[in-house]
């Protein structure tokens, strides 16, 4: 078995998931900060659910929703001519939901901590919401966005339960590094498991150290 394949797959899954979370998470966080919607607290609770749910709960319901016998699963298979469960696409969907709070919450916090006076200044100078967002809010929220991205990336890299439930352990398609460890251990190949585990451990440490470093530098330059 190709040693690098699960690692590359993990990187690919984390990258695609993080990009997707960045692109969809930013407007979503913006909405959460500025909406007057009464039931916002419910939306926020749903976003935060993956923080407390056992991954098997998320995995089980996802499998029910996207599996071959479900409406969505069948609809997807008709259009793309292949099933959504046990595919890379299914993993992206699962990882997206699983890491959603890790992206949205830091970004939301950063957006809401931008000084309201600056926004009002921008608006009173006749700038639109969109202009204000890109030229005032976004630059001031850099650290929150970077933190959100890095945490989503790292969290997706460490995902295991959801992947095993909705992706199984299919080599080259859904066998990511965390699942490869499980597989190597069952092959009684503890050396192989150790290689993957050590790589994931160092990688996670480096990522977190980088976040703390960036945040520290950001605070200093403020």
């Amino acid at each position: 078995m190709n040693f690098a394949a699960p690692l590359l797959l993990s990187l690919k899954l984390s990258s695609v998931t993080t990009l997707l979370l960045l692109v969809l998470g930013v407007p979503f966080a913006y909405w959460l900060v500025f909406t007057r919607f009464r039931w916002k607290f419910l939306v926020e609770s749903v976003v935060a659910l993956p923080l407390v749910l056992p991954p098997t709960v998320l995995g089980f319901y996802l499998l029910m929703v996207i599996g071959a016998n479900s409406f969505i699963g069948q609809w997807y298979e008709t259009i793309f001519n292949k099933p959504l469960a046990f595919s890379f696409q299914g993993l992206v969907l699962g990882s997206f939901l699983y890491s959603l709070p890790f992206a949205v919450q830091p970004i939301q916090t950063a957006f809401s901590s931008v000084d309201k006076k600056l926004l009002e200044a921008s608006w009173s100078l006749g700038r639109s919401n969109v202009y204000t967002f890109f030229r005032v809010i976004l630059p001031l929220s850099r650290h929150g966005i970077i933190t959100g991205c890095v945490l989503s990336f790292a969290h997706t890299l460490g995902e295991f339960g959801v992947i095993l439930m909705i992706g199984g352990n299919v080599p080259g398609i859904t066998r990511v590094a965390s699942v490869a460890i499980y597989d190597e251990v069952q092959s009684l190949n503890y050396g192989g498991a150790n290689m993957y585990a050590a790589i994931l451990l160092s990688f996670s440490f480096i990522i977190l150290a980088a976040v703390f470093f960036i945040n520290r530098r950001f605070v200093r330059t403020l």
Partner: protein
Amino acid sequence: MKKIVGYGLLTVFILIFGFSLPVQAGDNILIAAASNLRFAMHEICRDFQEENSSIQTKVSYGSSGNFFAQISQGAPFDIFFSADATYPELLEKEGLTAKETQKVYAVGKIVLWFPKNSKVDPDKWVQAVTSTDVKKLAIANPRHAPYGRAAEESLRYYGLWEKVEGKLIYGENISQTAQFVHTGVADAGIVALSLAISSKMLHEGRYWVIPDESHSDIEQIYVVLKKGEGKKSIRKLLDFIHGERGGNILSRYGFVIPSVRSVGDNRS
């Protein structure tokens, strides 16, 4: 407004990028194999690819019951090597298999395995498993692992089930069960002979073959799935397994090779 459009385009781009990357090369065989085959199937695939360098085999190992669930939910396997006859039968009932492709490829055996530092005498295994030397006994989960079912049947046959039930720990499949006893988490385990005589386990412990009459035959059946229907590469793989080289590997791992017959022939 432009930026919002840009955002939309970016999203679409990521989706297309992410969703189109994993393009499978032509002659791939995706195999779901019961985990008692873990080491034997590895050798089969290695030797098979030696003869057919253009074909790539990829194997996922797990419990047969788990694969049944995954395949029912749309898992993209071409062929399923089950550890029993039940799950292939159920898949056929669900219409997920290629017609008339079920075949017995091996008959398995179970063994009671002790780590080599164990003081237990495998010849007096009945006393051993009930003694305090064995605090934990590992078997595969009988709910979805055929080898676990065979283990349960044997324990009941010898009237040991009630005595050992409290110290059983359940592996998710037979190779996790082997892992439990190999790492010393359990003091003894009922595992597949094919795992016990693999190079990983052979010199790490001792085993005692549990007589066949104590459990129903572990007739292992493969079935070609809808996705693999008509694939030439699969025909070649099956010919290899039923051929001399494949047969030799399976017998070396302790399987009894049935004379070639299909399940259908068997019934009629």
